[in-house]
């Protein structure tokens, strides 16, 4: 068997993209080579620079070009609040949707006992160091409302408990504008058990 041709190598490489199977990889490869060589070169260069220049923020673990990301370095942020999220996208969603002015810690995952993903895989050693070194007064747990997110929130709560830090968890419930009739029963019962006094 002869070595793979350059085209075959490109098709194979494109398959690392999420959701791209052999068929779409072939289509993209031919498109780039036949119709957009300039775009292809830019893509290749951008990928290479990003892979070399983007790392994890030493403080919050999100993706960052500098050792500490812009948000963590911003002197305007409230250093007494720390919001814990599963992914960088979750932190961005909170930034867009709320007027939260505190800091973040990005787990880059969640505890997933059956997959062997444990506390050290989601940076909880690093979190403990921050709790010791920084003046954090409140932790806001914003993990997903899944069983794994729940297990993660519980574990962090136990980790923080001996320290004199307030721990809160974001509320989960009925989507705004949604009608109760159409909300799935689990969301509804979760919202019901988490009801608040008015």
């Amino acid at each position: 068997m002869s070595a793979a041709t350059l085209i075959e190598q490109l098709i194979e490489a494109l398959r690392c993209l999420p959701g791209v199977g052999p068929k779409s990889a072939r289509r993209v490869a031919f498109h780039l080579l036949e119709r957009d060589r300039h775009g292809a070169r830019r893509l290749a260069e951008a990928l290479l620079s990003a892979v070399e220049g983007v790392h994890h923020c030493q403080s919050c673990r999100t993706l960052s070009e500098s050792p500490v990301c812009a948000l963590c370095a911003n002197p305007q942020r409230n250093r007494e609040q720390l919001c814990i999220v599963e992914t960088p996208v979750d932190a961005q969603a909170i930034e867009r949707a709320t007027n939260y002015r505190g800091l973040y810690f990005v787990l880059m995952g969640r505890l997933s006992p059956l997959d062997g993903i444990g506390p050290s895989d989601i940076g909880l050693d690093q979190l403990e160091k921050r709790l010791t070194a920084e003046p954090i007064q409140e932790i806001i747990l914003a993990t997903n409302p899944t069983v794994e997110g729940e297990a993660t929130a519980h574990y962090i709560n136990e980790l923080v408990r001996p320290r004199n830090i307030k721990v809160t968890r974001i509320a989960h419930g009925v989507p705004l504008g949604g009608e109760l009739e159409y909300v799935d029963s689990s969301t509804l019962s979760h919202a019901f058990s988490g009801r608040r006094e008015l």
Partner: protein
Amino acid sequence: MSPSHRVLLEPSVVLHHRPYRDTSVILELFTRSHGRVGAIARGVRTEKSKWAGALQSFRPLLISWSGRGELVNVNAVEDDGAALFLSGVALTCGFYVNELLLRLLERNDSHSDLFQIYWNTVTRLGQGDEPDITLRIFERHLLQELGYGLQLDRCADRGVPIEPDVRYSYEIERGPVAYNENSYGVSVLGSTLLSLARNELKNETARRESKRLMRAVLGHYLGDKPLHSRELMQRSSALITKAS
């Protein structure tokens, strides 16, 4: 037994799920009539999917699927009653129960009694019943269902009834024999065996000894690979001890 081609509204629970490609998940289900079933649910990891939140562990579901072989295709999912909200220690124990089933059940072997026992177990965990009793009862039923049932009422060497105040060596795949310190068996008091047989485990000694016994017996069938959820249980309880 090969799974039938099309199954409608089968009582099921998700033991494990992992993302597959962009929008799908691969599920390990425990079902009432078909035992453990591997399944793929396509397109459920999107905002519009009405099942997105439903395919979680510890929720009674009715699942319809089609296909044969290692992975069947999920066609429909419905709730079959209210979800159990396990949290804290109960949730970690729930993961442990799921992991035991994943490791010990063969795919497509029917265990309908065990399905009911599974629900009783997670319900008890959710109610805050003592996990050390709930888990031991589950483990005993699981072993029995797999054909490895423990012998708890009679001595394996002499066939005489177990005496509560006598110490025995429990030899795996054989049963309790007269205690002797050179035996490879697990040392247990007769009262522990008898209370395990009655699903009681009222006193501390019975709980401690039956935990060690079950761990040895399950370890024999699980092999060398450690249980991930047990590690998490141990780390969590170390944290709780430290905090209190």
